């Protein structure tokens, strides 16, 4: 299994880059809260708890180093959301960026949606590499000339300038969510997108900010009867009428917007029957789905609950077709994980470009990859120790029993403060972005 990293053929993962401060004293604002590649993989966006977005751009491969893929360097950074206080509801609104989703590129500019708990914003990121010079009424520094001194006319011309990348908010979609937004998803029609909070899902048109349609509402008439909340939602990658949403009870509902305006009635309900003998106080908590992602093909979807990753075939509602254990050794730790709130951690998951491998994070800065075809899995670590350029990552192993082999880590030594909640996979290549608390690691396969 040495070196096997998924993608079959023994892909070897190497360290490429790490972004962020080295010091252990992490400011809250620096905690990374979302990571997302754009559709071409050329851009990589991160959002943090301080409401800031940083976008990295991949350098073009240089002819001199054909063995290396381009590095990701800072392209743009901006403050997306600010903290707010809703005085009417006595509610503090965090500026933390919950999700970033890129729009497919249509022209020279790039667009992304970023959201905090209450407000979604559409940002335009554009390049400026020319500027007009030779105005008649203005000096080069912008001061206005005395019109009486103007004796000739000239035509201003565009002159090249140093590349400037500008981010500007083009739309602000506000006031549509009473509860906290957990997901946004752009429709394949590129005209609409959905936003989901704990109890409702809204449909927006990207051009229209003062109106949104509610398409799912699971709020009970009597809040005492509340038994489950929406945890994630996503549009189907190519069927513009289809979306799914997951719940805190471990179910996924698929809805068809053609069926009715309000999709409270699901078209399909995906739920794995639970063995009653396994039922415990923790059952419901650990079955809560923290992320749902369609495969690129649209045939499958993946869900992440506390201990496992499940792959579902959209044609079969009764049970998942594949289940992968992420860190089953945590079963013997559930009591303390409940006490320190770790049991409520929301891990995300992602597919590789051809849907053959899936990845998700764990504790101790470990992350896991599962190769669906070759039935192999591997545990890797994002740490400064294994951060020498192009050094191959060594697979890690957690031991549960008494006898700890060399290089293994015992469950009791795991650092539960070092969690990898957010990971992203380049849409085509074997390049992955893994976020630890405040650092972003980029790994590539060995070419």
């Amino acid at each position, binding site marked *: 299994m040495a070196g096997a990293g998924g993608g079959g053929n023994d892909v070897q993962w190497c360290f490429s880059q790490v972004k962020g401060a080295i010091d252990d004293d992490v400011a809250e604002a620096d905690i990374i809260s979302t990571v997302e590649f754009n559709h071409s993989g050329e851009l990589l966006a991160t959002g943090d708890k301080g409401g800031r977005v940083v976008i990295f751009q991949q350098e073009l491969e240089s002819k001199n180093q054909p063995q290396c893929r381009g590095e990701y360097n800072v392209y743009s950074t901006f403050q997306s959301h600010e*903290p707010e206080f809703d005085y009417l509801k006595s509610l*503090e609104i965090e500026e933390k960026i919950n999700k970033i989703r890129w729009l497919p590129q249509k022209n020279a500019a790039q667009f992304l949606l970023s959201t905090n708990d209450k407000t979604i914003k559409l940002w335009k990121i554009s390049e400026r590499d020319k500027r007009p010079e030779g105005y008649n009424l203005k000096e080069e520094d912008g001061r206005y000339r005395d019109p009486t001194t103007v004796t000739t006319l000239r035509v201003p011309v565009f002159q090249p300038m140093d590349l400037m990348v500008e981010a500007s908010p083009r739309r602000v979609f506000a006031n549509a969510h009473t509860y906290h937004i957990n997901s946004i998803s752009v429709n394949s029609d590129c005209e609409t997108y959905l936003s989901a909070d704990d109890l409702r899902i809204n449909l927006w048109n990207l051009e229209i900010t003062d109106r949104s349609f509610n398409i799912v509402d699971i709020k009970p008439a009597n809040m005492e009867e509340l038994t489950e909340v929406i945890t994630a939602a996503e549009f189907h990658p190519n069927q513009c009428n289809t979306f799914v949403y997951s719940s805190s009870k471990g179910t996924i509902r698929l809805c068809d917007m053609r069926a009715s305006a309000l999709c409270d009635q699901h078209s399909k309900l995906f739920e794995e029957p639970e063995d009653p003998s396994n039922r415990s*106080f923790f059952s419901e908590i650990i079955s809560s789905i923290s992320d749902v992602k369609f495969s690129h093909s649209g045939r499958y979807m993946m869900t992440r609950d506390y201990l496992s990753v499940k792959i579902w075939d959209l044609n079969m509602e009764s049970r998942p077709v594949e289940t992968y254990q992420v860190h089953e050794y945590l079963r013997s730790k559930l009591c303390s994980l409940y006490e320190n709130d770790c049991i409520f951690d929301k891990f995300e998951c992602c597919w590789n470009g051809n849907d053959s491998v899936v990845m998700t994070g764990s504790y101790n800065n470990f992350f896991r990859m599962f190769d669906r075809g070759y039935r192999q899995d591997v545990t890797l670590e994002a740490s400064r120790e294994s951060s020498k350029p192009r050094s191959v990552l060594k697979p890690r192993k957690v031991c549960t029993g008494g006898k700890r082999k060399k290089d293994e880590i015992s469950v009791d030594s795991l650092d539960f403060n070092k969690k990898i909640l957010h990971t992203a996979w380049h849409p085509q290549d074997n390049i992955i972005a893994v976020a630890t608390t405040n650092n972003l690691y980029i790994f590539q396969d060995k070419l």
Partner: protein
Amino acid sequence: MSSENLSDTPMEYEDEKQDSQEKNANLVKGEEVKLKAKYPGLGQKPGGSDFLMKRLQKGQKYFDSGDYNMAKAKMKNKQLPVAGPDKNLVTGDHIPTPQDLPQRRSSLVTSKLAG
């Protein structure tokens, strides 16, 4: 992970799977017993809605100008209950004052990822 099981007959594999499932269930039950021993009152109320409610109410802070002014008036007479160690939790007996509400400051510093 399961390469060692390929040589087993299907029956034995099923047994092993059941065994490990039982073992898992026992591990989890053991954890539940531990938890109930530490917190005997846990799970008496419908547990589901308890943390769901907490989740829905995230971010709720209370400031009552009436309470604040009353407290200011009373301060002349006697010492007020001092704010507890957790300044972020503002509820119940503690009289919230503007000083206790955490300062909302936007991040003026550029992200260290861009540094």
